[in-house]
C-alpha cells in the first residue's frame, strides 16, 4: 500500500494503482478521453496530465497510466494543469468540431471558442485510439488501424477497404467516446429477418420470461467464441460467474427421472417454397413470426412497425392460412392463426395509421371471448376479405409507375378478382410439427401421426397420456392449439405425473409376455424386436427375460419366437382357443 495526497486529500491505495483510479476513489474527476477502464491505457490524448511532486521536484504525468509506487503529492487542478487542459481542448475543438463530448468539456471549462480554424465541422474523430485498441487488443479482429503519420494520421480499415476480419461486433462503436463510429447497415436498411427478441448482444436474457432468469452467453454473438479475444465480461463480473472453459464445450448431463412430459411444441412453416408469395425475394413480405418480433418492445425497432427503408407502411395485408388447410402442405387448420391475425390488425391500428386487409378462407373465432374480439376488430375498421391471398407481386409489374406490393385474390363474397396495393404483407404461416419430431418420438417410444404431431393414448379418454407408461404430452407437440389449451394440457399432464408419484407404486396390467426358460434357445431375436425395450438377455443363464413392468403386452415377441418359448399372459394359445370354441359353441 502507498499513501498519496491528491488535491490535499490523503488516500491509501494498493501499489501500482493509477493516479486516475485513486482520484476517482476520492471523488475527484480528471478528464480522460482516451481512457476506458476495460482497455489498457494508451495515454495519447494527454488530457489527464496532472502535476506530481516528489520531494522538491515537480513534474507532469498522465494520470490514466501513472502507477503509484511511493508517497507523492498530486495536483489535478493546479493553474499549470488547467492551462494545459484548456489548450488541449481548444486544439481538439478545432480538430473535431462535431464531437459533443469535446464541446461539453469546453463548456465545463468555460471555453467559448477555439483560437484555431476549424478543420471540418462534422469531424468527430479525436484519434484517441480506443477503437483500434478495442479491435486489436480486446476483440482481436485486427480490422482497424492507424495509417499515415503526424497531422495526417487517420483511423480506418487497412487500405481503406472493407476489412475481411471485421466480425461486425460493434466494439469500436461502443468504445468511441465521440460517436464518430456508428453501426449501420451499409445501405441503411432494416433487415426484418435479423430482428430478434432482444438486441444482438452476446450476453442477454434469452427472452424476458426466461427461466432461470439469468443472462447467458450466446455463442453466435460472443466475440470470444469467434476470435478468442475479448473476455471483458470476465473482467467485469465481480462474482466471477463467467467461465469460458466450461462454456466452450457443451456438457452432457444424465438425470434419472420417473416420468417425462413432452412439450416440444412446433416450428413455423417456411413459406419460401411458395414462390407466389415472394417471401425472401420481395422486400417487406414478412412471416407472422418476423412481424411478431418486430412488434416486441425490445426489438431493434423498439416495437415500431417499419418497412425496410425505416418508414411506416401506409397499408398492410395479412394473409391467412399460409401452409394450413392446403392440399399441398398441411391439410389441417393451425387453429391459432385467425385469432392472432386479428390481434396483429389491432396492433397496427394502435401503432400506425395504416390500412389493414385481412384475407381469410373462414374466420375461426371459436374460443371464449374470441368472437367478441372479432367484432371489435371489425368495428375498428379493418378490411376483411373472404378469399385466400393468391399472389404477391411488385406493384410496377401490373401498374406502371407505382411502388409497393400488389396482393391478388378472389373476393368470394362479391365474386370478384381483386388487386390490393399495399406496402407490407404478413404471411400467417402454419404451425407444423418440428422437423425432429419423429426422431424424438422414437427416442421416447411414442409415435407420430400422419401430420407429424405426437399421438396421444386415446383422443377422448387419455388425451395427455401416451402408449408408453410415464411419457405424457402437453401443448402443440400433440396438435395445433393456442396457449390456454396448451396450458390446460400441461396442467393435466402434470397432474397425471403427480398421481403416479403419489401412488408410490406402479399398478401393473395383468397382461404381459413370459419366456419359458427351458425352451428359450437364447437366440435373442426378441431382444431387438420389443418396441418397449422390455426384453433383456441374461448372459449367465444364456436365456432372454421379459421385464413385466415395461411390457405392454403387444405380442410382437410372442409371434416372433422361433422356439415358441414366449407366451402372452391372459392371451395363451389355450385361452384363445378356448374363447374361439366358446364363441363357436
Amino acid at each position: 500500500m502507498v499513501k498519496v495526497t491528491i488535491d490535499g486529500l490523503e488516500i491509501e491505495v494498493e501499489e501500482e494503482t493509477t493516479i486516475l483510479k485513486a482520484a476517482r476513489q476520492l471523488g475527484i474527476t480528471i478528464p480522460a478521453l482516451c481512457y476506458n477502464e476495460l482497455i489498457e491505457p494508451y495515454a495519447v490524448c494527454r488530457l489527464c496530465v496532472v502535476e506530481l511532486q516528489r520531494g522538491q521536484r515537480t513534474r507532469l504525468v498522465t494520470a490514466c497510466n501513472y502507477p503509484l509506487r511511493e508517497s507523492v503529492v498530486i495536483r489535478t487542478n493546479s493553474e499549470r494543469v488547467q492551462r494545459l487542459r484548456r489548450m488541449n481542448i481548444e486544439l481538439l475543438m478545432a480538430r473535431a468540431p462535431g464531437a459533443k463530448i469535446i464541446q461539453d468539456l469546453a463548456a465545463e471549462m468555460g471555453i467559448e471558442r477555439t483560437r484555431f480554424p476549424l478543420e471540418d465541422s462534422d469531424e468527430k474523430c479525436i484519434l484517441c485510439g480506443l477503437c483500434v485498441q478495442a479491435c486489436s487488443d480486446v476483440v482481436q479482429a485486427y480490422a482497424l488501424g492507424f495509417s499515415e503519420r503526424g497531422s495526417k494520421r487517420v483511423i480506418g480499415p487497412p487500405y481503406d477497404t472493407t476489412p475481411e476480419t471485421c466480425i461486425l461486433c460493434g466494439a469500436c462503436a461502443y468504445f468511441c467516446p465521440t460517436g464518430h463510429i456508428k453501426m449501420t447497415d451499409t445501405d441503411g436498411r432494416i433487415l426484418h429477418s435479423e430482428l430478434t427478441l432482444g438486441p444482438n448482444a452476446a450476453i442477454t436474457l434469452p427472452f424476458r420470461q426466461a427461466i432461470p432468469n439469468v443472462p447467458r452467453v450466446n455463442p453466435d454473438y460472443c466475440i470470444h467464441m469467434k476470435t478468442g479475444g475479448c473476455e471483458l465480461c470476465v473482467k467485469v463480473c465481480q462474482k466471477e460467474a463467467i467461465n469460458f472453459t466450461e462454456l466452450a464445450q457443451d456438457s452432457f448431463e444424465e438425470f434419472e427421472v420417473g416420468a417425462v412430459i413432452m412439450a416440444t411444441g412446433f416450428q413455423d412453416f417456411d413459406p419460401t417454397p411458395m414462390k407466389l408469395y415472394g417471401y425472401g425475394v420481395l422486400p417487406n413480405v414478412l412471416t407472422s413470426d418476423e412481424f411478431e418480433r418486430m412488434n416486441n418492445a425490445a426489438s431493434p425497432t423498439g416495437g415500431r412497425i417499419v418497412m425496410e427503408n425505416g418508414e411506416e407502411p401506409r397499408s398492410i395485408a395479412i394473409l391467412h392460412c399460409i401452409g394450413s388447410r392446403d392440399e399441398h402442405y398441411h391439410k389441417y387448420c393451425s387453429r391459432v392463426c385467425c385469432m392472432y391475425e386479428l390481434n396483429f390488425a389491432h396492433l397496427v391500428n394502435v401503432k400506425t395509421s395504416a390500412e389493414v386487409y385481412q384475407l381469410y378462407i373462414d374466420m375461426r373465432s371459436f374460443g371464449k371471448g374470441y368472437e367478441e374480439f372479432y367484432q371489435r376488430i371489425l368495428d375498428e375498421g379493418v378490411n376483411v376479405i373472404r378469399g385466400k391471398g393468391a399472389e404477391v407481386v411488385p406493384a410496377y409489374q401490373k401498374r406502371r409507375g407505382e411502388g409497393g406490393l400488389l396482393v391478388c385474390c378472389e373476393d368470394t363474397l362479391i365474386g370478384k378478382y381483386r388487386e390490393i396495393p399495399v406496402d407490407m404483407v404478413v404471411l400467417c404461416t402454419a404451425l407444423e410439427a418440428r422437423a425432429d419430431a419423429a426422431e424424438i418420438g422414437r427416442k421416447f417410444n411414442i409415435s407420430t401421426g400422419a401430420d407429424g404431431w405426437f399421438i396421444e393414448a386415446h383422443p377422448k379418454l387419455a388425451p395427455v397420456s401416451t402408449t408408453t407408461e410415464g411419457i405424457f404430452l402437453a401443448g402443440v407437440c400433440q396438435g395445433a392449439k393456442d396457449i390456454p389449451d396448451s396450458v390446460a394440457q400441461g396442467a393435466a399432464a402434470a397432474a397425471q405425473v403427480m398421481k403416479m408419484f403419489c401412488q408410490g407404486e406402479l399398478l401393473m396390467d395383468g397382461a404381459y409376455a413370459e419366456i419359458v426358460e427351458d425352451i428359450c434357445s437364447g437366440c435373442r431375436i426378441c431382444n431387438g424386436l420389443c418396441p418397449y425395450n422390455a426384453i433383456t438377455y441374461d448372459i449367465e443363464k444364456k436365456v432372454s427375460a421379459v421385464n413385466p413392468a415395461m411390457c405392454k403386452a403387444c405380442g410382437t415377441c410372442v409371434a416372433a419366437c422361433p422356439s415358441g418359448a414366449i407366451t402372452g399372459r391372459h392371451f395363451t394359445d389355450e385361452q384363445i382357443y378356448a374363447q374361439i370354441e366358446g364363441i363357436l359353441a
Partner: protein
Amino acid sequence: MKPYRINLMVCAGTGCVANHSFEIKKALEDEVKKRGLENEVQVVATGCNGFCAEGPLMVVQPEGIFYHQVTIKDIPHLVEEHFLKGRPVQKLMYVPPDAKAPIPKMSDISFFNRQMLIALRNRGLIDPEKIDEAIGRGAYSALAKVLTAMTPPEVVSLIKASGLRGRGGGGFPTGIKWETCRKAHGEPKYIICNADEGDPGAFMDRSIIEGDPHSVLEGMLIGAYAIGSHHGYIYIRQEYPLARERLTIAVQQAREYGLLGDNIFGTGFQFDIKVARGAGAFVCGESTALMASIEGRVGEPRAKYIHTVEHGLWNLPTCLNNVETWATVPEIILKGAEWFTSIGTGDVSKNPWGGSKGTKVFSLTGKVKNTGLVEVPMGITLREIIYDIGGGIPKGKQFKSVQTGGPSGGFLPASLLDLQVDYEQLTEAGSMMGSGGMVVMDEDNCMVDMAKYFLAFTQDESCGKCTPCREGTMRMLETLERITQGKGREEDIQLLEDLSQFVMDASLCALGGSAPNPVLTSLRYFREEYITHIRDKKCPAHVCRELNVYTIDPGLCVTKGHGCGVCRRQCPENAITGEKNVAHVVSQELCKKCGVCYDVCKFDAVKVA
C-alpha cells in the same frame, strides 16, 4: 601486414565520396603502379576525415601531409613530385582563409589541432573494411582486458566513475543505465546500438560506423559483458547503405576472428550482433519506438512509466546506447575513469548528472567556413568551435546565432558565444546537446524563418500518436507561416508561447517535448524580429519574400547596367518595365515577390526593403 614506405589515406566519407574520392583513389593506384611504386606506396580508403568542406581530402602518412581539393588532373604531378621525388606539392596544401602561406601538416591546421579524438580516434588512419588495421590500432584490447581481468560489476563501476553520459541526446549517465539493466530481472537481456541518426544534417554516427565500425562492436561487447547479455542489435537506417555495408563486413570479420559468437577469447563469454534496418522515420530514434520497430510493430513511442532497461525489447531488460557512446567505452576501459573525468566540466564523483565529461562529436554546418565533423572536449566554448575550429563566418558576414542539438535544439545568440558546451549549460540556455548537430546562422538568416524551417521538420516527423505534438506543432507551424507571410497578429506571439509550453509539457515523447525549442529560443533571444514581422510586416533579413518590396535603383541600373534588361526578361510576372539605357521599374501591383530580379541583377541595382 606488409609495411609500406608511404600510406595515402584517401577520405571515403560521404562528402568526399560525393566529390569523387573513389575515382581519385583509383587514379592514384593506377599512377602509383605506372611509376612502379606499388610496393612502396599503399592507397587506403578511410572513413570521414572530418574536414568535409575542403574535400576531396588525402593525408600522406607517416609524414602527416594534408592535401585538399584534390582532382584527378593533379594526380600524375602529385605522384611524381611527392612520392617519387619527395617534394610535397604546395599547390594542394590547405591555406587558412586569412593567411598566405600553406600549412603542410594536418596537425598544424587549427581545424584539427583544437580537436580531441576519442570516439573518432581512428579517423582517417585505418581502412574500415579491414579488421587487422583496427586491431593494429588497438581495437579489442579493451575487450581483452575486460574479459580477462575485470568482473562485470567492476566494468559497471568504472563506467559509472568515468561520468560518461549518453551521446544520443538525453545525456543519461551510461553507468547508471548499465547498472539498472544488470540488476533487472528477465532473460535474455538485450543490447542495442542506436544508429538511427535521424537529425537532418547530422552524420556523427554514420562517420563513426563508416570509419571505424569495430569501435562500436567492441563497446557493445564490453556492455554486454557488464550487463550479462548475449544478444545485440544495431538499428541502422536504410538510408545509410555504406555504413550498413561496412558494419556487416565488420560483424562478419569479428565473427571470423572469434570476437563475436560463442566462447569469445576462449573465456566462455558469448555475444552476437544482428543488424536491424530502420525505414528512416525520425521518431524511430526514440528508444521505445525503435524497439517497437525492431519487434516488427509500427515505430511509435509507447506511453508507459516503465523503463526500457527493465521492460524493453520484447518486454525484456534492454540497454540501448548511441553509436558514439558505445565507441567511447573501449577508450575509457583502457585509459581509466580518471583520465576521462579530467576532460570536461563539473564534478561527477557524487552526482552523475553533476558534469559533462570527455568529448563530443559535432557536425558543424551552416554559415561557417570550415564545415565538417569535429570532436571537441566538453566545456569548450561555442566561440572556440565556431571561430577557431570553424574558421568563423564566410564572406565577412556577421554571426547571428548557432543552433545546437539538431532540429529541436534552440538558437543561441552572439551574447552566448562564450557559453561552455556541456549538457547543463546548453539546457539552461534553452537549447540542448542533442546528438551533436551544430548549425551556424549569420545576418542573412531570418530567425522566424529558421524556427519555421525546423518546426516544419519535427511537425512532419511527428508520429501523430499524441494530441499535443500532432495538433500543437501543426498549429505552431500554421502560426509561423502566417507571420512570415505578413499575416501575423499581435496575439500570435502569446499563442506561440502557450502552444510551445503545452507541446513541451504534455507530449508523450521527447520529440514533442523538444520540438518547440527553436520557437521558444527565437522568441527569447530574437523577439524583436517577430515583432517586426508582425507589426511592420517586414523581414529584416529579407528572407521572408512575401514581406519584401523590390525596387530598382535607377542610377545604378543606368550607369552600371545600362538597362541590361535581364530582370525584365526573367520576371515571371512581367512586372518589370524598361529599355536599354533606361532605368527599369518594378510594378508593385504586379510583383509576386519571387525575388528573381534581385538574384539575377549583376549590378546590385535591385534593392529589397
